[in-house]
């Protein structure tokens, strides 16, 4: 889903079912002979569809990144010829690309840290507020989680509009601040900060709700025991709550890294479909190379590099999912 998630659905994260280990899913005993073919028959349609819709494009992505493929190849005027590692060396040797990678990493790191810290703080806060307020906050959280990314982006564009945006109007109410007409997107860092806020606003609900569920699993006895042993609130949190929540936190962090590295529609739509150079992140850059500059091969090479960069994170995520899901 990341897949899903990087683009729009990115925002609607799959409800990672963290099923309590109720039933060990271990297949029992050996099935008789008729069991051998059955699972493959059941899997066949799924694998077939995936091979077609996913396998082929993936292979094409790899082959494409080793070819010369531009406008004339697209229309079939010229055959696509192999160029070895040319695309990669061109991309990797490009200063702009390195700037894009750095920007993406900083952006993703910032988003992930803010999301996780805010999410954790909110989850802890939710435990301490009165019931009615908890319900109200939960409704707002789920509603903002459910907002289509495109809609959320559009709304933020309006909030931060330079002339009529309410954010500038509110800031100007502070004594000595005159922000009306301030264009947040005139500079890369400021604009990306707004986009980061949007990403965090959209990502926090999932984190809060998942962590809240996790917090109910923290044994009360452990917390009391720690308190009796003289631990303060911070000590209880640091040495009891945090270790119990660790697997959930690891899963949420890796998922957030994957999603925030793959941020696309937020940047793309915020900048009206043509992100300026100082707004380019890996995904928009790959898109830009392919569909704006019409160098499809270079775009593919960038996409492939992005996938490879994410692979390590994905591995951590998968280990965690396999553990939580008790797949073995």
């Amino acid at each position, binding site marked *: 889903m990341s897949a899903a998630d990087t683009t729009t659905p990115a925002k609607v994260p799959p409800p990672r079912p963290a099923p309590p280990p109720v039933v060990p899913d271990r297949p029992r005993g050996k099935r008789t002979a008729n069991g051998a073919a059955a699972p493959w028959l059941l899997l066949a349609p799924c694998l077939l569809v995936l091979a077609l819709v996913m396998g082929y494009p993936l292979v094409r992505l790899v082959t494409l990144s080793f070819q010369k493929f531009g406008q004339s190849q697209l229309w079939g005027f010229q055959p696509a010829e192999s160029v070895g590692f040319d695309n990669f060396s061109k991309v990797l040797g490009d200063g702009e690309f390195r700037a894009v990678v750095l920007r993406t990493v900083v952006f993703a790191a910032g988003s992930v840290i803010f999301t996780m810290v805010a999410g954790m703080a909110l989850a802890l806060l939710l435990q301490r507020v009165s019931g009615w*307020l908890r319900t109200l906050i939960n409704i707002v959280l789920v509603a903002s989680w459910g907002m289509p990314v495109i809609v959320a982006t559009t709304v933020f564009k309006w909030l931060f509009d330079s002339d009529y945006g309410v954010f500038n109007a509110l800031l100007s109410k502070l004594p000595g601040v005159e922000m009306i007409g301030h264009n947040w997107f005139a500079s890369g860092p400021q604009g990306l900060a707004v986009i980061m806020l949007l990403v965090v606003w959209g990502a926090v609900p999932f984190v809060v709700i998942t962590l809240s569920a996790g917090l109910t699993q923290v044994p009360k006895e452990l917390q009391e025991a720690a308190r009796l042993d003289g631990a303060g609130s911070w000590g209880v949190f640091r040495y009891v709550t945090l270790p119990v929540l660790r697997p959930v936190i690891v899963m949420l962090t890796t998922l957030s890294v994957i999603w925030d590295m793959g941020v696309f529609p937020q940047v793309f739509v915020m900048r009206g479909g043509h992100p300026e150079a100082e707004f380019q992140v890996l995904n928009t850059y790959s898109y830009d190379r392919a569909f704006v500059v019409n160098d499809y091969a270079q775009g593919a090479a960038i996409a492939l590099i992005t996938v490879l960069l994410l692979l390590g994170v994905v591995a951590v995520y998968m280990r965690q999912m396999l553990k939580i899901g008790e797949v073995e």
Partner: protein
Amino acid sequence: MSALVPSGRRRPRLGWNILGLLVFVVAGFPLYWMLDTAFKPAKDAIDPDPSLLPTGITLANFRRALDIADFWGPVGRSLTVSLTVVVIGVVVGTLAALAISRFAFRGRKIVIVGILAVQMVPLVAMIIPVFLLLNDLGQYDRLTGLVITYLTFILPFTVWTLRGFIVNIPRELEEAAMVDGCSRTGAFLRVVFPLLAPGLVATSVYGFIQAWNEYLYALMLLSQEHQTATVWLGNFTTKHGTEYAPMMAGATMMAVPIVVLFLLVQRKMAAGLTAGAVKG
């Protein structure tokens, strides 16, 4: 429990509540402002010193939003694509989910890792080869092309989520049915499917939302006259500027049904995941 809490505890709770209220206001503000702008007269929307409270209710922005570009065409296309994807995804996905959660077979773990891994491939990375592929197949600007593409993220998601639901259905129930004379298929149909129904509904709705919300492929693979609902929202920005009040009306029309669906499913997802069929 609360009776044991000394009354001195009320004070800290007041502090937390004030903080919570602040969070509520800040987190909910974008939603509030969308609705507020959508319903206020357009001239009040472009006020450099906007009133934070509603200034009057009008539907003019909604009428304008419907005028700017055809709305029901895109909605119809989004519905067609999302429903088709979900139906295919759920049928194919249920079979696969059963296979990986109820059968022991060689290669099972590889399949599971594969399905998880496929979920992690960023959609944006796939857009270039998908675009070239559909171009070659003559499926560019066709809804079928979009349906095929959406399966790449809906199908793995469906399989994985349904697997979670199936794993939580106690195997003992099936085994009991088989002891009572059901065939294996019979046990699936009579025991597993009824228990899986809430999970199936929740997964379908969730998948539907994802397909409905997808933006990039819809933008790239369909021409302007075949745009879907998410792309439709882009019509409010032209080179003459952005019509914000109608745009927020459009955003409201897009968001409200989806958010309502989402609110409903959230509960069902939780219920489906925790409901146990065997009473303790």
